[in-house]
């Protein structure tokens, strides 16, 4: 496991968001340390995805702050959050359906490219070289994910399991330092879930910090360094998997939901 | 510029605004039922005026009968448009539907120019030409007819939607077509109803407007676009918003034409619209978040 007292990469304090009268997230504080795999769990409606949406400015937060590597995230537009080195995958795996798998991953390189509309149209100032380079990088990335033979396929044709893998490959292509993954195992079968677990661990080995929202408890318990439990938008408990597994408040919150095994 | 002049512009603007409001109402009716912007809405207005003028001048019918015939024929045209062109393409993209309704509008206008020729057709004012003076500004009796027709039509529409089964069913379809269908509401019938109502409302606008502007085969395009403008200004699909949008647009256009430049009258409506959209991206009374 990573060093327990590594630097905090993301420091969230007193984050709040209400929809109408409903408190979706209220006063949540936590930190994610560099090199960690941290999981956010909780019953449906606990506010997990909302937290991701607040961190990536998809929704405006009502109050609180989120310090990432010396930057305040909450007031930045989404694309600037990405530029700071934060990647994200979605519950519904948002691929670009009209593009091929390879092109999807190539869009992942966007942040590191320099070609603009004019240099691209005229193929000047290294536009062609950049295009070739990113094509090869994307091809390699697909190869590593075992998806090379899908490169030319339209993304819309993929089954859910492969969609998730492509989305992760695309997010990693942007070379994030922090990756937010929203239910990466949803809709996957057992074998695919296991593979996703391996990929998440490899991602961490590659130096990427992971913040994970996940319902599959066996996956969460096996790969997480630390778990934050939310219930009704509030922080319920936080700690390493063994501690969370035995926490009575957590068991009570999950009663009737699903057992923690 | 005196206050009386401004008041005069305001009153005449209100008159045109009344027509815009009626046209906007037509847009909203169809939009709510189908999600389609019917660019042929302006042609309903043209048909209303042309048919009435023809029925009076050529067939010697009394005004009320001519108007009734005009509304009836236009309604049939609206129903045919729905059946022949909109329904087969219901699930197409917004752009495709825009092209279809624009095609329909070109088609109707072309036929009208063949049937009636390029000349303007006068329609006598409903109750004499004597001007009425209100606080120093004059207004024709026909203007009162326009405003009266707008008010009555709006009230009838409101009553239909509030109190009749058909109206309630149409509202249900607008809110959630799927659920409405599950409740046994036949969607396609509701769409037909909305096209029929929209065409009738358009025809009424054309009939009351014709004595002021004269009827001509090509008046539909600009009136339709202004009505669309009013519908968007008020918030697309919002009936009350459309009426408000129409009146505001008419008044601003008249003031702009009078105070700034009458040559650019047609541009003023769209300048107003763009400014409003930049401040409120879903219109004056539209829901936040814009187009569903």
């Amino acid at each position: 496991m990573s060093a327990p007292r590594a630097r905090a990469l993301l420091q969230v304090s007193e984050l709040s968001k209400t929809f109408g009268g409903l408190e979706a997230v209220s006063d949540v504080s936590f930190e994610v340390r560099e090199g960690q795999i941290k999981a956010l769990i909780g019953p449906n409606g606990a506010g997990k995805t909302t937290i991701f949406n607040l961190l990536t400015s998809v929704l405006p937060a009502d109050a609180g702050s989120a310090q990432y590597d010396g930057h305040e995230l909450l007031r930045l537009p989404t694309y600037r959050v990405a530029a700071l080195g934060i990647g994200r995958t979605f519950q519904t795996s948002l691929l670009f359906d009209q593009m091929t798998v390879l092109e999807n991953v190539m869009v992942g390189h966007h942040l590191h490219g320099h070609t603009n509309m004019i240099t691209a149209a005229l193929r000047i100032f290294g536009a062609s070289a950049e295009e070739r380079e990113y094509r090869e990088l994307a091809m390699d990335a697909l190869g590593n994910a075992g998806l090379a033979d899908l490169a030319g396929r339209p993304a819309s044709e993929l089954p859910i399991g492969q969609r998730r893998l492509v989305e992760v490959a695309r997010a990693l292509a942007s070379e994030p330092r922090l990756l937010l993954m929203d239910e990466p195992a949803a809709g996957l079968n057992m074998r695919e879930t296991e593979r996703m677990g391996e990929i998440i661990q490899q991602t961490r080995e590659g130096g990427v910090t992971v913040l994970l929202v996940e319902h599959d408890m066996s996956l969460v318990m096996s790969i997480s360094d630390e778990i934050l439990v939310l219930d009704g938008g509030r922080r319920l408990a936080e700690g390493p998997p063994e501690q969370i597994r035995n926490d009575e408040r957590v068991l009570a919150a999950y009663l009737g939901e699903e057992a923690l095994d | 510029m005196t206050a009386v002049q401004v008041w005069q512009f305001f009153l005449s603007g209100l008159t045109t605004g009344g027509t815009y409001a009626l046209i906007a109402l037509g847009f909203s009716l169809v939009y709510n039922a189908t999600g389609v912007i019917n660019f042929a809405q302006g042609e309903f207005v043209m048909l209303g005026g042309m048919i009435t003028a023809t029925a009076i001048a050529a067939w010697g019918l009394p005004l009320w009968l001519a108007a009734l015939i005009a509304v009836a024929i236009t309604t049939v045209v609206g129903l045919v448009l729905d059946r022949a062109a909109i329904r087969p393409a219901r699930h197409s993209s917004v752009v495709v539907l825009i092209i279809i309704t624009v095609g329909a509008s070109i088609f109707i206008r072309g036929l009208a120019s063949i049937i009636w020729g390029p000349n303007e057709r006068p329609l006598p004012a409903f109750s004499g030409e004597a001007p009425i003076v209100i606080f120093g500004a004059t207004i024709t009796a026909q203007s009162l007819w326009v405003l009266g027709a707008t008010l009555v039509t709006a009230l009838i529409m409101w009553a239909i939607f509030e109190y009749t089964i058909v109206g309630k069913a149409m509202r249900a379809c607008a809110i959630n077509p799927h659920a409405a269908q599950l409740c046994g509401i036949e969607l396609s019938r509701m769409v037909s109803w909305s096209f029929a109502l929209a065409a009738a409302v358009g025809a009424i606008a054309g009939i009351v407007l014709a004595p002021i502007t004269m009827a001509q085969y090509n008046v539909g395009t600009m009136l339709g676009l202004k009505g669309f403008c009013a519908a968007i200004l008020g918030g697309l699909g919002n009936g009350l918003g459309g009426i408000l949008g129409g009146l505001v647009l008419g008044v601003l256009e008249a003031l702009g034409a009078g105070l700034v430049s009458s040559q650019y009258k047609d541009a003023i409506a769209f300048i107003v619209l763009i400014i409003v959209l930049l401040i409120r991206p879903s219109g004056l009374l539209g829901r936040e978040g814009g187009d569903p």
Partner: protein
Amino acid sequence: MNATAETQPQPVAENEALVMARRRRAQKLQILSLFALVIVLPLAVRNSYYIHVIIFIGLNLILATGLNLLMGYAGQVSLGHAAFFGIGAYASGILTATYGWNAWPAMLAALVVTCLVAWLVGRPTLRLKGHYLAMATLGVGIIVSVVLRQWVDLTGGPAGMKTTGITTFGWELRSDADVHYYYFVWGWVCVLTILFANLVESRPGRALRALHDSELAAQILGIDTAAFKVRAFVISAAYASIAGTLYAHSSMRFISPTPFGFQTSIALLVMVVLGGQGTLWGPVVGAVTITFIQEFLRPFGEWEIVVYGLILMVLMVVMPGGLARGLGMLWHWGRERVGRLRAARAGGGA
């Protein structure tokens, strides 16, 4: 191939790369064949009327290609694109005829003016979505066409204005030799098509297609979607401006506000949709079809617009996905019918 896929994934990946490389080569070949066709066509078509029509196809193709970038790739509707065509035409027309500029700097100035207007208009309006964006662009189109009509001192108003020809280092493109102008216009078409093909297969081109599919996913990968929409808008306006300049200096040596109105904006929309949005060849198919339809209908006199309206409706009802997909579906439908007939006959025989 499937058997190898199970045991050795690597060769399959190489195959995949080969397939895609072949696809890119095929596209290059297609563009080259377009050039070849452009070069030899006047040798086959001697009739100056047809040359004239083909020049118009070229202009429409430039317009439709620009609009295709905005609609087909970036997924943003514009109902006022003829405005930029008009600004391009009038800006260079006025600069040459009234102020005596040479056509080349006038073209550049027109391009700058159009891009500036597009940028000013696009920055706020492209925040709007769906029908609201459609209405805003429609409004811009109408405002421009009203200005062209009413600013009589500058534009000559509805009566139009005379323009000049294009002179390059003292050599003028003569108005009585349409073939010269044909090569000039289609030379531009070829250049602009290559630029377009380069652009869509590049970082910014993919960014546009990405935001078309999902703005959220595009933003999360660091794409400033608002800025990219505006850039696509400006570039499509630039294409329209170039087409406008070429139109202004064509052999008619005359421009009036009529071709720059709502009807043209709609015709451009039809070209893009009809050819198939978001494809390199869509605008070609659309521009050829619509230009020919419009020319073909001219002798119909007063029935012209009736038939035109009818054709628009029928085409869109029958083939909402564009001509290529529409014909493909028609082909499948026909084959199915034939198959069913055969089956019925066989069933009847047995």
